[in-house]
């Protein structure tokens, strides 16, 4: 079976800074993959390369077998790659419901009538239903993060990219979020999740990928990765 996402020898430089260096990995359908690494390791850049917000210098990216290396972000979204932004990017003057409607109408190519019920259900699932008709600009940070997730879901993605959506949440909120993501994953959505909150991440993902200075320094089962010497040194800052 072909992988949902294939990243082959991808490199990217911002000036002299190598933000991605010869990165290769595959994500099989239905997997949940976690990405960890210190700040500035190139995690968000890797997402931007996958979604096309940043173009690669070298290498190849494929989605469900088709080459998307040069495809525009909107095309990749329509193909089934949904994402959240690390810093929430709501449509501030539109309501929460309308934010989702944009995603459903353009990302999932649905008519507004067809999308209404599904968007309402997503609002319920993400706990935003009481805020449905509020303008997104008036939301709190937590609600904005939920909106990021809800909007990505409204594009009806096959592959969902989550960029640090648990940061800054309380323990209880984080627990709720983990349950929501588990439910999404259980429906067969492939998930790639960048997160610093490791216990939340490790309760969902099946594999971990570690990035440092734009390079993959490890990929494998969470327990194995967390105990590896390289990760403990670089990521956790522990001298072993």
């Amino acid at each position: 079976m072909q992988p949902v996402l294939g990243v082959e020898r991808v490199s990217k430089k911002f000036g002299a800074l190598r933000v991605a260096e010869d990165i290769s990995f595959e994500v099989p359908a239905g997997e949940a993959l976690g990405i960890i690494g210190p700040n500035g390791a190139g995690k968000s850049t890797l997402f931007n390369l996958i979604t096309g917000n940043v173009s690669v210098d070298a290498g190849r990216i494929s989605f469900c077998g088709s080459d998307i290396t040069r495809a525009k972000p909107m095309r990749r979204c329509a193909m089934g790659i949904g994402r959240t932004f690390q810093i929430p990017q709501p449509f501030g003057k539109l309501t929460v419901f309308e934010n989702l409607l944009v995603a459903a109408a353009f990302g999932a190519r649905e008519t507004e009538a067809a999308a209404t019920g599904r968007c309402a259900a997503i609002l319920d699932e993400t706990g935003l239903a009481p805020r449905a008709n509020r303008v997104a600009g008036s939301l709190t940070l937590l609600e904005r993060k939920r909106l990021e997730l809800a909007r990505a879901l409204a594009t009806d993605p096959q592959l969902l990219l989550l960029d640090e959506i648990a940061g800054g949440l309380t323990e209880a909120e984080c627990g709720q979020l983990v349950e929501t993501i588990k439910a999404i994953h259980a429906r067969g959505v492939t998930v790639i999740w960048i997160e610093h909150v490791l216990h939340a991440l490790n309760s969902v993902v099946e594999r971990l990928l570690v990035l440092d200075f734009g390079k993959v320094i490890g990929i494998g089962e969470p327990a194995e990765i967390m105990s590896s010497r390289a990760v403990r040194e670089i990521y956790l800052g522990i001298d072993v």
Partner: protein
Amino acid sequence: MVTPTASWRVETRTRASSLFIVAAIVIVVAGLVAPAFIGRGMLRDLFFILTMLVLAQSWNLLAGYAGLVSVGQQAFVGFGAYTMFACVSLWGINPVSAIILAGFAAAALSVPTGFFVFRLQGAYFAIGTWVIAEVVRLSLAQWKALGGGTGTSLPSGATRDLAIVTWIGEAFGVRSSHAVDILTYWLALVLAVLAIGFIYAFLRTRQGLGLAAIRDNSEAAGALGVDAGRLKWAVYLSTAFVTGLAGALIYVQTARISPDAAFSVIDWTAYVIFIVVIGGIGTIEGPIVGVLVFFVLQNMLADYGSWYLLILGIIGIVVMLFAPRGLWGLFADRTGIQFFPVRRILAGGSSSSKSDAS
């Protein structure tokens, strides 16, 4: 896939907007029969208000919704006007058909100019549009058959001898010059109604929703599958068309053209921006309020010479500082009233979320 719960529905109409539809129909019908009751002076005032309203609505769509802050819309006013003049004076086409042709000519002009200005962002886009308007003005000033730099007048019989003008003259019992004013007034009314109707209908479509998303956050809109480039092109092209129509219509009424007047950045862009900003950018109601305020100010201040522009400027700055969403924004925030609602309100369902849209 989440299972959709039934019984959700989307509402856009509000009570105020339902009442407004009735009021709007009354106003338009009253507008259509008005020439039987009002004099030429007032007809000309209404013509001015209506044509400025059309220009303001298109600039509002361009800047307020698509984020394309152009200060070069006079390019399309002037190009439309000159196309109409060429059609009538040089090729003997009747002025009403010439107005339509002028709209298409302006839209055609927007293709090459868009090709240049869409490479620019923000302030550079604004300057780029202005430069292009100057280039078009200087080019048309070379057209000797249309009077070059000093301009020319429409042939005297061109509009008066139209069958419809003769018919209006007989029906209302007025002289042909008065009948021309009635015709241009009607055309302005129809153009204003069509322009507002088109913009409102567009904003309520899926593409209109996409445009609002681009206005709020272009990058996120792209990541969600909205084709920002194509939508901006569509808006740029269609506003050029409408602006060209308005330009041609204005100069059918004026009957005299010169490059400096037809491509005036003050008349066709600065005043238009003033109207939209005063009234409230990013709403359909805003330009309607703005054009009325502008008209009243212009009449009140007509005797004060250059003080007039100074006072307009001060009012503009005060509104921008204290009511950045314009007079309509101030009113709508207090009352929640919208005559042209585009907000999609989610209603019904099990966990009923009250319509608390702001």
